[in-house]
């Protein structure tokens, strides 16, 4: 096995592209090292991306925020500007693991590990976040929901690295939120989770809405119909009831030790309602 620490994205892409055996990208390592120790993967090459220029930075641009792929979630949580603009994304990222895990884990790693229960992913999908992908044939920018394709699988091709996650600049009257259900209060994997992102018009009616569910299907789900039902409303009881129904119906969950299909369906609806209410309040809705 070889460990390398390239300083440029071009070098990293080049090394990955020409790798003969299995190769792995190392960001915070909180999934990768656990899987290596468990014998689930035996990479011949590890490409540590943390020394690549710019990957450790959060930058505010005219379009919004660019969060480098090597930014640990603890650092993201300390960034006041991102926290103010995208509190739901940040609260989701900060739910990952313990303080120790926060010091290492990244939202890009969370996305690329492609767990259906990844905490930051529903919030990123609801936020309409984009991923900047660097690869052997250049760069492309894609919607985050197109990255995971199934548990542990992504749409990234050989040699491709996500170099940053992009979040839009916020208009006025916008809010997002994320909640997960776990039987404990800390250090657990979501049984079901939901992320909601809303913008309101000047009268407090919902103008745009995106709703995403975690641990409810093989990949994080963007529930477009759930977003549509919110548009035009001020989150009255009837709308919330319909939102919950749509979310419960959209789930394709599994039965496992964490929860039954029936339980997950029910809780997906309950969480969607609660998260929508938090996002609405954050957007300034009453």
């Amino acid at each position, binding site marked *: *096995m*070889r460990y390398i620490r390239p300083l440029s994205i071009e070098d990293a892409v080049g090394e990955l592209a020409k790798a003969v055996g299995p190769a792995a990208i190392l960001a915070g390592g*909180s999934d990768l090292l*656990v899987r290596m120790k468990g014998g689930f993967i035996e990479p011949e090459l590890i490409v540590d991306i943390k020394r690549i220029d710019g990957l450790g930075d959060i930058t505010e641009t005219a379009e919004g925020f660019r969060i480098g792929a090597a930014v640990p979630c603890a650092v993201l949580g300390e960034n006041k500007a991102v926290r103010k603009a995208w509190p739901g994304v940040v609260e989701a990222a900060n739910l990952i693991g313990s*303080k120790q895990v926060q010091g*290492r884990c990244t939202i890009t790693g969370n996305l690329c590990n492609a767990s259906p229960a990844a905490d930051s992913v529903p919030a990123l999908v609801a936020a309409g976040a984009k991923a900047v992908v660097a690869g052997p044939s250049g760069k492309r920018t894609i919607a985050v929901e197109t990255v995971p394709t199934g548990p542990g699988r992504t749409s990234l091709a050989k040699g491709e690295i996500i170099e940053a996650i992009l979040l839009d600049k916020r208009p006025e009257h916008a809010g997002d939120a994320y909640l997960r259900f776990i039987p404990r*209060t800390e250090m657990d994997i979501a049984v079901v989770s939901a992320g909601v992102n809303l913008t309101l018009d000047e009268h407090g009616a919902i103008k745009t809405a995106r709703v995403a569910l975690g641990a409810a299907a093989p990949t994080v789900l963007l529930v477009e119909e759930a977003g549509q039902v919110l548009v035009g409303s001020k989150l009255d009881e009837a709308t919330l009831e319909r939102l919950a129904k749509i979310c419960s119906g959209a789930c394709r969950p599994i039965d496992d030790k964490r929860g039954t299909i029936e339980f997950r369906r029910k809780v997906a609806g309950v969480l969607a309602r609660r998260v929508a209410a938090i996002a609405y309040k954050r957007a300034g809705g009453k």
Partner: protein
Amino acid sequence: MAGVAVSTTINGDAVEYLCQPDETLLEVLRDRLGLTGAKEGCGTGDCGACSVIVDGRLVCSCLVLGAEAEGRKVETIEGMAHGDQLHPLQQKFLEHAALQCGVCTPGFLIAAKDLLEKNPSPTEEEIRFGLAGNLCRCTGYDKIVRAVQDAANVMKGA
């Protein structure tokens, strides 16, 4: 496997070592450098017994590669006391009997040090959340929480 040559700083001292590319920082500390304070409880990031601070960030050394420490500043439990003078947290852990078998203790002390550096006056809830990445099978946690509260008071007075 080719060894990786690493130059780093541990508890203020320049240190150089050669490690395997898949060797963890915890293994390097314990097996190559004789710094056996950090413990391996689980090896998977769940128990916090291996906690160290790297460039000001609390991490599980079992989930860091030894090779990643190149050019970083690592702080371990061995650097916590100044000579014979215990850190207030160490002193308060003794006074409050916040340890029994002691396997979790180095990790708790490092995590508590990091917590108090970032938040000198934590509430009980903040202490419990802040230390949720550290498991203890002996004490039941209450004594640890009280020791951290007491140490926080002492450190604020200092």
